[in-house]
Structures are given as structure tokens and as C-alpha cells.
């Protein structure tokens, strides 16, 4: 009962904080701010917050064990998990970012969508069932199955935390911009509200609350995006050709928006981005963790199929939404900065294209709905990310490395809650630092790191008998560090974020995956092959038993009773 009462106090405090921020927003409007207070949006957002806090309260009462906290006790069905995965994936970065990219450059947005989707089949064919059969709470459970625990756990935790940090930045930036536009709040204050709510969901409700927040939000987002795409198509008599020709007519790039353009500067860049998007999916810790919330391999498989369907459908919608925004938003002075014309003058930047479009097709109430949903999306995704990051700290670093597997379960849960608070604060700070980055691009960077460290170690540990602890650690860190260095030295960070002159970036490609993945796989192979240590013999000898379990699930952790 202690948890529940702490929860009540926390929720009450949060509501007080929230209402005082809203009062601030109202004050800002009175003070002549350019933002208008959208009552519908605030009402719907508050309704969502209350509903999800209610769910969190319910979840907090049943979250007693570590299994409940990390994986909802394995009691989520395949279909529910599919929706939750889709929810994790249909982040604000993909909803606002891709529709914004389509708005700015047309066809280029579709390249991102396609890349983000095609990782899913690979996950289904090669790792979903194996993950469920081998793992317990985190993907490190699988990657370290037959190896020396400490080095692999440290590696996996580093891979997880770096990926989570980049992904969180993208979400926080989206959140800040959105609330700034909607409520007239200061950017930093908006980021603070998201951080605060997310900490409440995760610390009190764990995976149960995170999953249900994700499911509700996925349904709302799919409904809202469907309606928006329908309204856009309806304006053009359900004739895509009419939509596209109007867009070509009003877009400054004209017909170039109908083919790949400036986003991809050269072929190697395209391949590198493609690799990062495809294999990054298979290395995202918060997604991999979702496979442990279902009861068995069959449910794991089904959840990816459901997720692939919803995500694919959603990406087709964002493409229509982006073109809709070109035709209906960039031509309407209401949505542009006062006194300016043209596409780039859009209020709040290109990431707001979908939000303005909601106003254009559905009026103020629908704008309120989409804004509330977009905000809900960010909350849900940051919760999932933070839970994955906190699990890496508590389950991999604290329980396995520091306590050598002998941690008290309640201590482990406490550590993960402390980590959640810490990560929440970090996310707020990083969100403020990276205010002016394109959010879809930041997610691309997270994918590069997931593809270069987490994915190679995971897939090689499942399929390659010859891998050893030493090979995995050296290869994994090579991938992680080279991806990180490549990202920092790339034009996107070196020039745009740090402010060095254009053309000065030492690494010419925006995405390092082509090189960093090759280094990771090459490193794992080379250093495993050369490894003649006693530990290496033990690692290799452990493979047959691991392989049998990965194939059949015999010995796997089952669903907990409810």
C-alpha cells in the first residue's frame, strides 16, 4: 500500500504543478503573447493525462515484482503488444518529423518511412522468437546468455543508454515545440512538464502502465491520422493525382518533390542511412524489451505482424498528410509567420506541418485533438524509452554487474525507479540543449548507434557459434564508438548543432552506419576468431544448449500468473 500512497501524493503534486503552469500560460496570453489558448486542446490533453494517471494508479497496485515492473509479468497478448510496439514506433518524431520532411522535400520523406518499416520483417524472421525464448527482462539477457556476464552487460547497457539518449532528445524537442505552439508556454517549461509526467508513469506504473499508455495512444493516433488523411483526400475528390499536382504547383521545388532529392546527397550516404534505419529497428532497446511482455514465441511473432501492418498503414498516412500540408498549410497566411510567405515561413517550423493541417481540415476542436494526441504520443514514447534505459541501469548494471546476480528484488526495483528520475532530468536538460535540431534526423542518429552496437552483438550471439566474450565486447564497442564519433563529426552535428562553418565536417556522411556496422561485425569476427582463452572455449561450448532453447523455448521464462 506504500507505493499507492506515495503515488497519490506524487500525482496530486503533479496536478498542482500542471495547473499552475496552465495558469502561467493563461497569463502569457493576457500579457499579449501571440499564442491563443486552445481550450479544446487543453481539455483533451488533461482528459488524457487523467485517464493515464488512473491507469498508472491501477498499474502501481499490481506492480510488485521485478517481472511486473520490467515486463508486465509476460501477460500482454500478441495483439496488444503489436499495438504497443506500433505505439512505440509511431513516435512524435515519425508523426511530426516525417510529415514535416514530406512538407519540406516531398518524396524524401517516403525514403525514411520505407527504411523505418523494413526492419520489422527482419526482426520477425530472425530474432523475435529467439529473443522471447532466451530473454527475461532486457536484450542483454539474450546477448550475454552464454558469455561472461560483466563485460557484455556493461556493453549492452552503454549501447542502450546512448541509443535511449539520442531518441529521447528527438522526442523532447518535439514535445517542447508542440507545447510551445499550443499553450504559449516557454520551451523549457514544456519540456519540464513532459519529463515530470513521464517520471510518474514509469516509476509508479512500470511496464504495465507504459504498455497501456502506449496502446491507448496508438489507437488515438491511428484514428486521428486516418481522419486527417481522409479529409485531405476528400478535398481533392479522392484523386491522388489532383493532390500531387496541386502540391507541385505551390511547392517552391516544383516537380522535384516527386522524386528523391537533396536529402540524400550521394549514393554512399543513401546506403548508410538505409542500413541504419533497417537494422537500427532490430537494435532499439525499448522495442526489443517489448518481446518479453508476451507469453511465448508465437505471441512474439504475432505482435510483430500486427505492428508491421499498423506502422506501414501509418506511414502511408503521414505521406498523404505531408502533401496535404503543402497544399493547405503553406498557402494559408493563417499558418505562416506574420508578413512572410512561402513554405519555410510556417509557424513553429516544419515539424508543425501536421498540427496546422489538423486545423486546416478539422477546425479548432480537431486541432485540439491532434495536439493532445501528439503530446500523448511523446509522453508514451519517452516513458517506454526511459523504462528501457532504467532497466539497463538496474537489471544489467546494478543487479548483474555490481551485485553479481544476487540483488534483492525490491532493491533492484528501487534502483530502476531512481534511474528513471535521473534519466527524466537528463532528458529535460538534453531537450533544452538540442532545441533547434530536426527531430526525425535525431532519431536517425539513434538508429545508427542501435544498428552498430546492439544489433551486431545480439544477432551474432544468437546465430554464430564462434563468438566469444572478448570478440563481442571489442566488436560492440568498436561499433558504438565509431557510430558516436561519426555522428559527432557529421555535418548534422558538427555544422548544424555545434556551429562550425558549412563544409568543415571531418566526416562527410550524415549517417555512419555503413562504416560503423562493418567495424562492429568485422571486430566481432576477428577478435572472436583470434581468441584462444579459456573463457572462449567456454563461450563456444555454451552455444548448442543456447541454440536448442532459442529454437524450442524449452526452459524459457513463461508468463507469470495474474
Amino acid at each position, binding site marked *: 500500500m506504500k507505493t499507492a500512497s506515495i503515488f497519490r501524493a506524487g500525482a496530486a503534486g503533479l496536478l498542482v504543478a500542471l495547473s499552475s503552469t496552465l495558469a502561467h500560460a493563461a497569463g502569457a496570453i493576457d500579457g499579449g503573447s501571440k499564442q491563443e489558448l486552445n481550450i479544446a486542446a487543453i481539455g483533451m490533453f488533461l482528459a488524457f493525462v487523467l485517464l493515464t494517471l488512473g491507469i498508472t494508479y491501477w498499474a502501481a497496485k499490481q506492480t510488485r515484482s521485478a517481472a511486473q515492473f520490467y515486463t508486465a509479468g509476460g501477460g500482454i497478448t500478441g495483439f496488444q503488444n503489436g499495438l504497443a510496439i506500433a505505439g512505440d514506433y509511431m513516435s512524435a518524431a515519425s508523426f511530426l518529423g516525417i510529415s514535416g520532411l514530406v512538407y519540406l522535400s516531398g*518524396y524524401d520523406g*517516403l*525514403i525514411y*518511412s*520505407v*527504411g523505418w*518499416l*523494413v526492419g*520489422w*520483417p*527482419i526482426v*520477425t*524472421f*530472425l530474432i523475435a*522468437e529467439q529473443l522471447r525464448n532466451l530473454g527475461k527482462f532486457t536484450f542483454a539477457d539474450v546477448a550475454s546468455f552464454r558469455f561472461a556476464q560483466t563485460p557484455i552487460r556493461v556493453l549492452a547497457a552503454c549501447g542502450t543508454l546512448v541509443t535511449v539518449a539520442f531518441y529521447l532528445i528527438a522526442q523532447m524537442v518535439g514535445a517542447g515545440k508542440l507545447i510551445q505552439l499550443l499553450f504559449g508556454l516557454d520551451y523549457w517549461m514544456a519540456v519540464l512538464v513532459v519529463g515530470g509526467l513521464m517520471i510518474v508513469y514509469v516509476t509508479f506504473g512500470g511496464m504495465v502502465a507504459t504498455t497501456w499508455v502506449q496502446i491507448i495512444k496508438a489507437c488515438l493516433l491511428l484514428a486521428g491520422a486516418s481522419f486527417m488523411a481522409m479529409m485531405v483526400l476528400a478535398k481533392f475528390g479522392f484523386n*491522388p*493525382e489532383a493532390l*500531387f*499536382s496541386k502540391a*507541385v504547383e505551390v511547392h517552391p521545388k516544383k*516537380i*522535384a518533390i*516527386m*522524386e*528523391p*532529392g537533396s536529402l*540524400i546527397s*550521394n*549514393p*554512399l*550516404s*543513401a*546506403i548508410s*542511412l*538505409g542500413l541504419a534505419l*533497417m537494422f537500427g529497428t532490430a537494435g532499439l532497446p525499448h522495442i526489443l524489451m517489448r518481446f518479453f511482455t508476451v507469453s511465448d*514465441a*508465437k505471441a512474439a*511473432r*504475432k505482435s*510483430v*505482424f500486427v505492428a*508491421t*501492418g499498423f506502422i*506501414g498503414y501509418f*506511414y*502511408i498516412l503521414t505521406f498523404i498528410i505531408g502533401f496535404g500540408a503543402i497544399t493547405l498549410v503553406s498557402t494559408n497566411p493563417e499558418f505562416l509567420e506574420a508578413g512572410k510567405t512561402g513554405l519555410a515561413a510556417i509557424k513553429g517550423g516544419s515539424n508543425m506541418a501536421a498540427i496546422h493541417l489538423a486545423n486546416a481540415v478539422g477546425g479548432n476542436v480537431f486541432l485540439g485533438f491532434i495536439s493532445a494526441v501528439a503530446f500523448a504520443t511523446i509522453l508514451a514514447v519517452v516513458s517506454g524509452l526511459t523504462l528501457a534505459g532504467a532497466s539497463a541501469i538496474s537489471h544489467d548494471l546494478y543487479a548483474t554487474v555490481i551485485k553479481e546476480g544476487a540483488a534483492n528484488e525490491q532493491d533492484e526495483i528501487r534502483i530502476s525507479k531512481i534511474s528513471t528520475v535521473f534519466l527524466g532530468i537528463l532528458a529535460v536538460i538534453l531537450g533544452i540543449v538540442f532545441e533547434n535540431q530536426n527531430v526525425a534526423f535525431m532519431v536517425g542518429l539513434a538508429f545508427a548507434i542501435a544498428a552498430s552496437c546492439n544489433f551486431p552483438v545480439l544477432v551474432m550471439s544468437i546465430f554464430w557459434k564462434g563468438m566469444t566474450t572478448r570478440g563481442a565486447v571489442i566488436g560492440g564497442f568498436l561499433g558504438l564508438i565509431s557510430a558516436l564519433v561519426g555522428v559527432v563529426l557529421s555535418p548534422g552535428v558538427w555544422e548544424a548543432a555545434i556551429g562550425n562553418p558549412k563544409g568543415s565536417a571531418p566526416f562527410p556522411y550524415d549517417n555512419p552506419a555503413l562504416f560503423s556496422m562493418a567495424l562492429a561485425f568485422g571486430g566481432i569476427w576477428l577478435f572472436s576468431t583470434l581468441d584462444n582463452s579459456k573463457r572462449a572455449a567456454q563461450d563456444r561450448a555454451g552455444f*548448442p*544448449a543456447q541454440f*536448442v*532453447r532459442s*529454437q*524450442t*523455448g*524449452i*526452459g524459457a521464462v513463461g508468463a507469470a500468473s495474474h
Partner: protein
Amino acid sequence: MATASYETIEKNPSYQELVRKRSSFGWSLSAAMLVIYFGFILLVGYAPKVLGIPLGTGVMTVGIPVGLLVIISAFVLTGVYVARANAEYDVLVRKIVEDAK
């Protein structure tokens, strides 16, 4: 519940059949997805103008249906795998688990 050791399971013909079928099917489908996707990415990288060829008389280009087809193929391939796994692999797995008891 006492279960057989992995050495015993490895010798089970049903297990060998499962591994053989699932591995070859999984890797073939992965290869198919890679070919489709990297075919698309190579077009984007090396021949972006091909995707810009007009389709008919309007502004619609080849690139739009090609992009949509890649998205749809991802869904269809996943469905094909799940259907076969449900029909065949689960039966084999159940048999192996029974034999191992």
C-alpha cells in the same frame, strides 16, 4: 518437470526438421526483403531520376507506387512467415516439447 538434455533434443528428427525449415525459410525471406529494400535504396542513391520518371501524363512519378510497394511487401512477407510458422513450426515445437518430457 524433468526435461531431456539438449543433446537428446538435438538428435530428435522433429527438431532437426524444425531448425532446417525455419532457418532456410527465415534467411530466404530476409534475403528477399534485403533485395527489395536495397534495390530501392540503390535506385535512390545511384539513379534518383528513374524514380522521377512521370507515370502517365500527370505529375505522378514511378517513385510513388514503388515506395508503396516496398511498404506493402514488408507487411506481406511478415504475414507469409507468420502463417507458415503458425501452421508448421508450432506443431513441430509442440512435438519436440512433448518428446523432451
